[in-house]
Each structure stands twice: as C-alpha cells, then as structure tokens.
C-alpha cells in the first residue's frame, strides 16, 4: 500500500469508527439483534468439497501447520498424526506417548558440518505430552528421534525461542532446551501454568500464565551461560485469563483476555501502548460476552478481533472501525484469512465457519470473481474488501463527506460440517483450509471447481501414461 492510500484508508476507517462511536456503546443493545443468515445458495463460497479426516479416537487438542502442505493434529488418544492437504489418509501416525498429546511444533534442526562447511537442515516435529515427555520426530520418516524427559513435568506449550536450535517448553514451569535434547535451564514459576509463549523480536520471549505476562531474554550466544534471563513482569495485568498472545507488527504485540480487553504492547519497552475494548461490566453472569478468544492482525495496522459472538475491526491506534455484533450464534474461537486472503473466516462454537468478504461480489457467482482483471491490492485489508481506495475516494474522505460509506466485509458463506465447536482453522497455499472441531474430526475444505479441474489433469496424465504403456507393449 502506498503511503497516501494508507493514510486515506486510516482516515476512512477512523471516520467510520467515529460514526459508530465505540464497539461497547452499541454492543449491549445489539444483544437482541438477530444473527444474519448466510446468503441463499452461497454462490461466493468456494469450499464445495470436503474430506473428513478421521484417525483420532479422542478429543483433538490442536492442529499445527508444518509447511506448505502438511500439518499435524495432536490428540488425547496419545497420538499425533501428520497429514497432507492432498490426502485423506494420514502421512504418519506418531505413536509413543503414554499420555494425551497437547502441543506440537515443527522446527528445522540445523547441523553444521564443519568439514564440508555447510549446514544440514532437517525438518523435525516436537510433541509435548502430559506423560512428562517431549518427543522429537523426523518428518521424513515419521520415526521418533529423541525422547526428552529431564524436565519431569507435563508440557502444555512449545515455542521457538528465536535462537537457532533452542526451544522453550512451558507447563508447570518454563524450560529451555536445545535440539540435542539437553535441558539448559528451568524457570520455576510460582503460580499458574504457562498458557502461551511468544517469541518476540530481539531474542526475547513473552510468557503468559493465567492473567500475567512476563518477559525473558534468551541467550543467543553459545559461549555464555545458557539461561533464561528474566527481564520484567509486564504490567498492568489483565483482569482475566489471557486467551491469545500474538505479534501484530514488527514493534507491537498484543494479548487478549477473557474480559474482552486487548492490550497492545510495545516490543521495545514492554509497556502497554493501547488498551482496546475495555469493558467495565465484563462479567455479565459469568458469561463473558466480550471475551476475545482470538485476534488477527492485518497489514500491521489493524486488528480483527473475535469479540464474543461478534467480529470487530480495530486500528492499532485504538479506534473500532467496524463491528458485527452477532456474527455467530455462539462465541467465535478463531479468525483466519483464507482463500488467498479473499475471505475472513471465523470459527465458532456454533459449529460453523463463516466467510466474510467484499460486498461488491456478494451477488455474483464465484467464477466471475476474478481479481486478475484488476490490480491485486497489496494490502490484505484491501484484498479482503475487494477494492483499493481510489484517489477520488481519498478526496471525498478528506472532505469528510457524510454520505460516503466505508466498505466493510459482509457475510458471503457459511461452512457447516462439524457437529461441534470449530476450534481452529489453518489455511494453505493451495487455497485449502483445514479445521478441527470438538467432534474429534479434521476437515479439509477444498475448492470443488478447482479440484475438478485438477482431476481432469490427472486423468489426462493417466490416459497418457496408459497409452504409452500400450504402445510399448505393441
């Protein structure tokens, strides 16, 4: 996005935000509002083909992407399964843990070959379990390479550390490991379990436990004592449990909480710069209507946040630019940009994934929706809204014309297939999305029309192959 457009966009959204005052101002009244229904026939919804992946016999804890086409699902049935987006059979079923597997992380192990002078890189997978072990798996063979036991406590979260071959594991305590399987350091945390670990720039990590955040420094040179150095406790605390912790731009990260607050922290100073969505009466009979399970940063300047059942778009400066109070029937658990950024997908406890996108295409069938004819907007938000801001619009914005309407995402489709809450959604390069639900299944969502074309190609190849065989025979 060029600087001018950026400015214009910000101005435009600010104006919109001003008009709708604040998210909280209207939210209480909006409780009675009906949930919008998906458009009839959903011509915009490209996900017309699904594969149901069933290999787990118990609750799935999470799914983690590994690379461009692979992901791993971990489950209470003591297994982790590596899947590919073009196959409904597992690539590897990783057996070995004696307890529920709760977290996983893909990493690249770098081994320097001193003699030959280059680095060997191997893709590995780490899985943490309640059986007090961490297992290291090869992603080439699916074999268990190493079992880490020294920490002697359960592991709930794994994270890269920002330093090569070092990783952090959190549970009861916080551990620093290297990939050779050495436990380098343990930080005893007096209190709650670690729920999130965020690798922030500059060899630092931020650890969330219950409603507190704490920053540590990761040793980045092998010479010094390899210990996690405590930097500071981040203040002020959230009022309730922290639900999400993510980077939003190069210099800011954000944490969201059950009480609905999203705090934007400066990476440099580790202090709060903005506090969004502060709600006084957040409890409301312990239903936490404003809880922010997940948020999604867009273009380094904006945040899509799942606020209770609704979606809100905030600018990092603190304005609520757009909001949809009743986006779902139940709380939204995850937000993701899918299908090459053309849709914002929201996963909800009501078992649906809703797709939000540009209004101007809402009536057209998907086939007509081709951004190829236009310039592809650089900005994610512009792509989502399906348009870039023209100079004319800029002018109108500067003139602060009241009649001018800000483009906003509209409901374009609803993906229903899970029979329980949809917990998380991954998106892959080939426009496939992968979701898992509390019903214990993983679903691959694919673009039916595109898949059909791919199958045509495949059949042409098969026939070609066969006719060659035929010829060689004769």
């Amino acid at each position, binding site marked *: 996005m060029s600087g001018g457009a950026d400015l214009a966009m910000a101005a435009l959204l600010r104006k919109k935000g001003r008009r709708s005052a604040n998210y909280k101002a209207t939210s209480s009244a909006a409780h009675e509002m009906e949930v919008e229904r998906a458009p009839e*026939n959903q011509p915009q919804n490209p996900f*017309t*083909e699904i*594969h149901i992946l069933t290999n787990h016999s118990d609750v799935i804890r999470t799914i983690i992407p590994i690379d461009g086409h692979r992901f791993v699902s971990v489950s209470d049935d003591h297994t982790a399964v590596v899947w590919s987006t073009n196959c409904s059979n597992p*690539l590897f079923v990783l057996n070995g843990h004696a307890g529920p597997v709760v977290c996983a992380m893909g990493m690249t192990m770098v081994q320097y070959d001193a003699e030959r002078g280059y680095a060997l890189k191997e893709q590995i997978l780490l899985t943490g379990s309640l059986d007090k072990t961490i297992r290291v798996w090869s992603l080439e063979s699916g074999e268990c390479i190493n079992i880490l036991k020294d920490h002697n406590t359960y592991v709930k979260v794994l994270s890269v550390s920002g330093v090569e071959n070092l990783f952090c594991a959190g549970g009861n305590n916080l551990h620093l490991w290297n990939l050779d399987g050495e436990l380098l350091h343990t930080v005893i945390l007096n209190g709650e379990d670690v729920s999130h670990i965020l690798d922030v720039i500059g060899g630092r990590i931020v650890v969330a436990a219950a409603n507190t955040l704490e920053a540590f420094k990761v040793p980045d040179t092998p010479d010094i004592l390899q210990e996690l150095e405590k930097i500071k406790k981040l203040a002020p605390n959230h009022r309730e449990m922290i639900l999400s912790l993510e980077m939003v731009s190069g210099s800011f990260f954000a944490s969201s909480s059950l009480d609905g607050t999203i705090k934007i922290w400066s990476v440099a100073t580790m202090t709060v710069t903005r506090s969004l969505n502060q709600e006084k009466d957040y409890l409301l009979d312990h239903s936490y209507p404003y809880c922010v399970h997940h948020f999604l940063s867009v273009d380094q300047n904006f945040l899509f946040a799942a606020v209770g059942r609704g979606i809100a778009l905030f600018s990092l400066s603190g304005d609520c630019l757009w909001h949809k109070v009743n986006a779902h029937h139940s709380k939204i658990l995850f937000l993701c940009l899918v299908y090459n950024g053309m849709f914002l997908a929201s996963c909800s406890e009501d078992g649906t994934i809703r797709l939000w996108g540009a209004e101007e295409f809402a009536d057209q069938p998907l086939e007509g929706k081709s951004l190829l004819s236009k310039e592809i907007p650089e900005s994610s938000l512009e792509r989502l809204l399906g348009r870039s801001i023209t100079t004319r619009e800029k002018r109108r914005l500067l003139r602060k014309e009241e009649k001018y309407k800000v483009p906003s995402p509209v409901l374009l489709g609803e993906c229903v297939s899970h029979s329980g809450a949809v917990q998380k959604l991954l998106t892959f390069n080939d426009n496939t999305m992968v979701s898992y639900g509390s019903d214990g*299944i993983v679903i691959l969502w694919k673009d*039916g029309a595109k898949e059909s074309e791919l199958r045509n190609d495949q059949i042409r190849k098969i*026939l070609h192959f066969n006719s060659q065989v035929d010829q060689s025979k004769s």
Partner: protein
Amino acid sequence: MQAYAEIFHYQNTSANIALFDAVGGEEEAFVHSVRPFPFHLIPAYQPVMPWPCTKQKIDKDFILVCEFSEIIGPTSLITIPRDGGRNFDKDMFAVRIMAVDYNATNTMRCYASFTIVEDTSVIIEDKEENVYAYVHHFTLYDIHARGYVRPFCMAYVTPDKNKLFTFLEKLMAKFKSVSQLFRSGNQLLFKTELDQRLADLLYTKDSMQFPVATSLKMAKSSTANSKDNTDVTSGQGEETIPCQRRRTIVENSQEALTKAIQDCQGMLHELRQKMESSSFLSKYKKEGGSQNRSGCDECCLGSLGYHSDSETVISTGSKTNICNSTLSKSLSSLCKVTNCHCNSQPYQPKIIKVDACRRYDQSLRTLQKLSGKLGSDALNRLQKLFKIFSRDAVVLKLEHVESSLVNPSTTLLTIGRTVQINFLANMVVQSNNEAMFRHRNRAGRTDSFLMETPSSCLSITSDSTQQSFPLSYDAEFVPGSTAASLESIYYDVEEGLDDGDEEKTQDNDDSWLEISFTSRGEERTENNDENRGLGGSFDVVSINSHSEVESVDLSPHQLMNGGTVPFVNGYDKVVQLRQLSSSSSIEPVLSRCSKVPVGCYASRLTSTNTDLPGADIRAFLHTYPFAGHLIYALLSGRTTIIAASPKREKEVYSIIRTLRLFVPGHSSNQLIIPWHTMSLTMCDLGKMKLVGLAKPRSLHRAIPASVFRFSTVFDYDSSKLWTPPYRGKILWKTISQCKQLRQDQSCIAAIETMMLKYSAKAYLFYHTYCLNSNLCNNQSEKQSQLTAAHFLAKINAIDGDAKIVQYWVDIIKQQQISEFLTQTNSSHVTKKMPIKLNYEGSKLYHA
C-alpha cells in the same frame, strides 16, 4: 438408443396404450390402471383353443430332451418349461431329431470295441411347422443298457430363426457345458459300476475255481460285516448260500466269463484314459484325495475287500500296494459325486450270471440318475439356459451389445446398477492427448488398455476347448474396487439387506436371482491367498457346481448349500480363489475380484420379477408430486434420506427399491442402505447415497443440522420433502410422460431413454471438456474463460441438468483415479470420493 426406443414402442403398443390417451385425466388413469399380474399369479392352466383354424404352430421357445429308448425308440423325456410346445407333436419331433444322430450311434455300436463318443450337434429346420431347432446329441453309458449306451439329445426349439442363428455360438457353448456335466457325472458312475461288475466277475471266476474256499471266505466276511445277525444267519448260511451259488456257477461257462472279464477291462481302460484326459475329472480327483496319486479304479478295487490273490489282481492291471485308508477316503469322495452310495463300506462282490441277456423286465434309469448329482446340476443349468435364451431376440441382442460396454470397468457408468455407457469402450486415446480416438479392433483385447485387467481374471479354467468360447455376457470378472460384471439376467442383489435376503433368494426358486458377487478380500493377506491357491484345496467354484465352463455361475442356493463359502449376513461376500488347471504349466493364478453385478436395461424390462429397482415407479410418481425434485437429488449425487418411524420399515424398503433405479454408480457396496437405525454423520454422506432412516421421534434428532443441510430428506410419515428444487427440463419432461403411461415397464423404458440422454451429454462433456487439454493449457487464449458451466450450457445442460451431468462424469473420474492409485500402490493420495457440498438451499415440499 434405437433399440430401447423399439422396446419402448413395443411396450406401449402391446399393452394397447395410447400415449396421449387423455381420457379421464391422470388421477383417474392411475386409479383404473390395471397392473399386470406378477409372474407367480399368472394362471398355470391356459385353455387351448379346441378348434384351431390354422395349423398349430409353436409361438414360444422350449427345450426338449429326448432319448432313443431301446424299447420304444425315440421319445421325448423332458420339456422345459413344463408346458412348452403344448401344441407341438414332440414325439414326432423326437423321432426326427434322433434320426439325425442315429447313424452315428449305430456305427459306434457296430464296432466290437467300446469307444467313447463325442457330442454332435446339428440345426434342424422345419419350414412347415415354422420351427427351428438346435439339436445337441450326447451319449451316456449304462451298465444295464444294450451295448452300454443310452443316446440322448437336447434340442432348443424356437420359431425365431434369426435368434437361433445369431446366438448359435453361445447356444452351442451353453449346451456343451450342460452335456459336459451330464457326461462327467455319468462317467464317474459308470466307472464305479464297471468296477463292481469286474469285481463280481472275478469273484465268480474265483469261486468257480475254488468253490469251497470262497464260500467259506464269504461266510466269514458276512459274519464280520453284519454283527447283529451273526448268530441267526451264520448257521444257515453255510448250508443255503453255497447251494445257490453252485447253481449259478454251473450256468456260467468258463469261456463266457473270461470274455466278459476282458470286455469289462477293455471298457475300463478306455474310460480311464478318457477320464484322465479330462481336466475336470483330474481336477476333481485332486480335490477328493490329495494324497491319492493313483486312479480311482484302484481305490475302488482295493476297498472292495477282495483278497489280493496275486493273479487276478495283476490281471486287472492295478497295483497292490494300496493304503486302505486313503482308498476308502477317495471312494467316499467318489460316492459323494456319484451320489449312489452314501456309505463308504466296501462293495461286496457277488456271483453273477455272465451271459445273462437283458430281459427288459425293468426299466432303465432316468437321465438324472445316470449322472448322479451332476445330473440335477445339469438340469438346473438347462433351466437357466432356457430362461436366458427364451427371451426376445431384441433383448438378447441388447445384452450382447451392452456386454461389451463392461470393459474397461473404470469408465463404466451405471445407474441403478444397470449399464448406461462406457466412456472409453473400444477406444484408444492417442498419446498426443488431442482427444482423438480410433476404434480398436474388436478382436483385440480391450483390457490391455486402461487399468489393465489381468487375463487371469477372465479365464477361469485353462481348458483349451473352453477358452475358445466367445466371451459370454454372463460373468465378466474385472478386478478392482469399481469393477463390474454384466449379467445376462437381471441381478437383484440387495446391498446391505442383512436380513430377509436369504429368504428371498430361497423363495425365488426360478433362479432369476444370481449372485456372483465376489468381494475383494482386502482383509486377507496376499500370502494367505497364495497358500490356499497353491494348495488347490479351496475352489469354491468347482465344489459348488462341478463344471468346466468358462464362467461358473454361483447361484445363491449353491452358495448357501455349499457351506464352504463364507457368507456374511446372507449377502454377497465370497472370496473367490480360482486355479488354472494343473495340466498346464502356468502357475496357479488367483483372482480376487470385487465384482459388482450390473444388469442390462433390456433384461430389466422383460423380467417378470416384481422386486427389481424401479418397481412401482408409476405409483410413486403419481403419489408424490415432488418426485421430480427427489429424483434430481439422487441423480445429482445428493444423499437422499427416507426417514420414517421404525414401524414403517417395510414401506421404506419398497420406496428404496423403487428409487434405487436412480442411484448412479456401482463402486461402493454401501451406496444404498435400506434401513439405518443410527444417527447420520457427515462421514456417511460420502458413501451413502440412498438411506432408509429410522426416525425415533423427531427428525432432527436422527439427522444433525450439518447433514440435513447437505442432504435431501424425505419424511415418509408426513410426506414432506426438503430438497433443492430441480431447475431443468429433461427430467420434468420424462416425468410428465411417465405419468401418462400405464405400466411400470413403459415408465422404466421412458426413464432409460432419459438416462441415455444424460449419458450422452456426460460422454460429450468428458471427452470434449475434461479430456481436452487445450482448454486449460492455453491460458492466454480466450478459451481459458470457458468454464465447465459454459461448456455444459453449450450442450444444452443447464442448472439441474448440468449438475447431473457433472456428477456422472465425476463418478467416472473418481473410478479412474482410484483404480490408477490402486494399481500404482500410491497410498498417500486420496482415494476416497470427496464429499460434495451443495450450498443450494433446500425447499420444503408437501405431498
């Protein structure tokens, strides 16, 4: 297409229906329409017109089995069907057809030596009577008959000359297989009898030379054998039996005895040679006693309990080193075949009169008894043969044409398990991918192309004479998960019918049902199969039907009676392991086929079975005005759920039976679930296409919201239907046409015409769009804009029709891909058909 139109026309005119007979309107027509009687209700007695104005002619085919009786000359024995050729002088005809072969048998008789005669066949034409017959002569052997021969013949009599000549080859092959059964059974029996005769003769000779010793021996053995009456009879036996015996012995001259023994041995020798050369019998022997390497003759002899007084035994040419246990074992196996002696007790030789001429005081055995158990098998086969060939020539021809569509099975499209079209039949795609095709030589095996079918699966026995048979339409074994076989008679295999199926097949004694569905035993390991195959002990086919023909039909009765066959829930899972005859050097080849029976529409139309797909279709169309939407859902691959309260299971069954006519594809045996009692899940949508669902209380409890959204739900109790509306033309047109017809058969013919319309579009779409790489590769051209929808619109398939066509092509594509992946053993790619989500909103329809 043309032929179906012909049938359609025939159906209409023969039933005296005017297509546009608008009298009374639809409703009334429905009420007054008289459905044809089911087959079993048609009165058996149909009075013959007593004053025929023209010369009596036969109008229907029948099979006549005749014998040249040694007492009364040529006579007819069996007519199939029982009332076949009622107005026809069968005995006169028998004289005619037996006379043709009489010379052959006569010359045989003139020879002094005993020879085994091959079958002869001939075609007889009687223009006056307007009768054409294929006559198959064969000779059986009977120890009691004059010259030991019993000449028989079977004749297929028809007024349709064209039919006879068109299907002559098949007819010949079929009759040959029947005669083979007769003769094989007969040879086994005759040999047993000859062995016994020989034993008798030797014993007689023995007792002439050493009268006392034998009588004593005899007495001993009799006491040993019958323990109950030892005390009572033994005392008298010593006095009375020798008296009788001496009298007989005196009557026998030494010379006659020696000559009789020689004759008998000569015949045995001839017979043994014949039987050894027969692959069927040698195969049988191997099964019977795996340890027994010697012939059956020895075992019979040895187990006779006849003492090996070296001379006599050597004179029979058999060895003495015989283990008794194996012998009795093989004898018992022989008895099983011949079905004459069910006890494995050794034969007691007795003293006989050698030169006793036949006195014609007792009638000879019947044809069936002459061949033992195989005789009744042969007659059953004859019945079946009649059922196949007695149908109209048009039907036979259509079946013949469509049987070539079965290969390659991966591109075969079936709707309701009936063959529609094969996308790649008889063609080869040029390697330059320009979607050009050339027709393949018909003689060439198409299976070398595309998803190779190993020839082992087609050839079942390696008998060279049998392999030269034309590929018959009644069992083509094609491997693969999506394989199909076209059967000449309409199959009615209810998938997933876990109860009641057994009864049904039992009831249908006219054997219209034929299951030859073998499932790919994926759960079995390769090794396991191989072992079994090499052992040669597991051969379902030969155990059950003892035949040598190129394809062996396994009827459900046989399967169930066979006992050796693993029958899962009364339906069709048979692991079929076949073995090439050991006479050839080829290693045993196994065929593990997943065979799905598919039928031909022509057979469906002419079948009298009331339990076939599409039964009561007329009533259904009239009762439910929304039938079109429902059928659209089925044709376009949307899972259709028929929900009803548990007590209405039977009604749901019959609706499923009607609707299965519209279920495309034959890949999965879970396509149709007649009665499902659990809540449905999204996973079920992938495989099930037509489901009968028990609905406990509320509909939504049995069907989750997500499933409800992507399926068509028909609540049978309240006659409500939730489904996306059908927007298209073709289906509506056919339905309104069907509503004016008065017979199910006519409706089905009309529907078939519609299916072919769709098939033709699908064919075009597949070849010109899906296989055309030019459309996709030249992105720069405007052609890239041409999407599937645009293309379909061009071939006049829009909205609903386009979806149907696309789904049908998708089925073919999926079949091809999954077969390819199976062959290349790529396990890491999706083989399962994805679940299609059609976001089109459902509408509610009331009846």
